[in-house]
């Protein structure tokens, strides 16, 4: 595991007190620290706009958007599958475009509008894509589902859901270990029609 993951767990385990002390300059523990000449985390105070709400937070420059969403804002809908850009479980929208939160630096999205799966429903009524995933049983364990839904909404908006073939091609960045793929294609087709009707 890389150092970032170790840091993240440490922060989760011991909470904000340690996070604050790290930001004040004490060196993080760990085998690599002794080899590294630069052990002092650099932090920034930023405003993060997520699902229409502004959050003033202090982040380490290294913190990915995925970790900030999950650990700083408690928005755990976005999942960490691979943390290397390979699985799509962390898909979110930045200015309406689908991006991977695990390869995005939090400091780099200051001032941009971010949408996560938590921001889709309006009150009690689900987004047509969420409803379609339920209607078509488009998941089993559900781990990939929030990423699939975020990706699918963008896929429709991009105009890349014209045929089953297109849907499969343009959804290929979202892996599903349970192989719910046929049902996902069916769900996207249903939601596409509703989204296009307005």
């Amino acid at each position, binding site marked *: 595991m*890389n*150092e*970032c993951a170790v840091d993240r767990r440490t922060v989760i385990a011991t909470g904000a007190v340690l996070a604050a002390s790290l930001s004040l300059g004490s060196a993080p523990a760990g085998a*690599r620290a002794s080899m*590294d000449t*630069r*052990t*002092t*985390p*650099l932090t*920034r105070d930023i405003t993060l706009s997520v699902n229409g709400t502004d959050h003033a937070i202090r982040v*380490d*420059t*290294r913190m*990915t958007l995925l970790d900030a969403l999950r650990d700083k804002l408690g928005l755990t809908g976005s999942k960490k599958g691979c*943390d*290397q*850009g390979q699985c*799509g479980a962390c*898909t979110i929208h930045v200015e309406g*475009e*689908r*991006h*991977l939160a695990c*390869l*995005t*630096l939090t*400091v*780099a999205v200051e001032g941009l509008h971010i949408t996560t799966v938590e921001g889709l429903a309006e009150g009690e009524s689900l987004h047509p894509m969420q409803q379609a995933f339920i209607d078509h049983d488009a998941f089993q364990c559900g781990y990939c589902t929030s990423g699939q839904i975020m*990706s699918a909404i*963008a*896929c429709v908006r*991009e105009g*890349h859901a014209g045929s089953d073939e297109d849907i*499969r*091609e*343009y959804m*290929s*960045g*979202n892996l599903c270990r349970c192989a719910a793929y046929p049902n996902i294609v069916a769900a996207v087709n249903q939601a596409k029609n509703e989204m296009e009707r307005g």
Partner: protein
Amino acid sequence: MRPFAYERPTDAATAVALASVPASAHVTAPVQYKGGGTTLIDLMKLDVMQPTTVVDITAIDDEAMHRIVPSDEGLRIGSLVTMAKLHADPSVVRDYPLLTESLWQAASQQLRNMARLGGNVLQRTRCLYFRDTSYDQCNKRVPGSGCAALDGSNRGHAVLGTSDQCIALYPGDWAPALVALDARVEVLGRTGKRLIAFADLHRLPGTTPHIETSLSPGELITAFIVPGGPRRRSLYRKIRDRESYAFANASAAVAIELDGRTLRDVRIGLGGVATIPWRAHRAEGMLRGQELTEANARAAAEAEFGDARTREHNGYKVVLGKATMVRALLDAQAMEVPR
């Protein structure tokens, strides 16, 4: 990941000033540019890249770096254009199919929305010994340490342009198209702008696989210039382990011009088989002015791979590379080209 300072300048000159620090190579410099970050942040997490400062170039407020415009010199593509934006541009789709097909078949839509074309051409090898620092031997990561891939797991490694020090594959899909079209790269350094041939951007590994490009530390790619064209009879063929979202096992970017069956012009770039974006000069030389037949295409492919050097697990790339090149040429011949 190691701590780093983050800068987000709004003009190119400031970015270059921040990044122009002494270093042995562009890729190992302590100040690294970040476009989409899909190579950089990944490799920083793995501790393979260890910059002390990351200069985010996406906020640079220079129109020319964000746009695609036809010009007198050819098609000018800003280095901050995303992969997704270029493959969705209708005029580029029509006039340069190889430039757009090579992009939509690369990575995933999420990655293509993030990744910029400047970073795209500079993406690093996927060699697993390079990406995993628990292996001691990797001349590219630690110069002089040896190469674990030579006698290791080398199914994904190159057969063309290799050396005894490194057989790492250049993994990108877009660069073979650029090299086939004689593209040029516009580069901004501390002393001003210069143009280099795209073919001179990537260096063969030789004895110095850790020096990957001819860029000096701090040099910023600002644009790509694709001369000539349109190239409507052109395409990209990519063969991979699964149908989508995988790197190439072998690929070919071709652009041809026909007089009946005779090849007035032929350009071939190969991916998935070589250490750098590979221009198939030898094959082109044999085909130019000749009839395009399957037999001629096969003979040219045979010659192009004549010097291929295989290791234990990558012999299939010679067979697949040749077949992919032949198929790309014949498919281009069969294309219905809009007038």
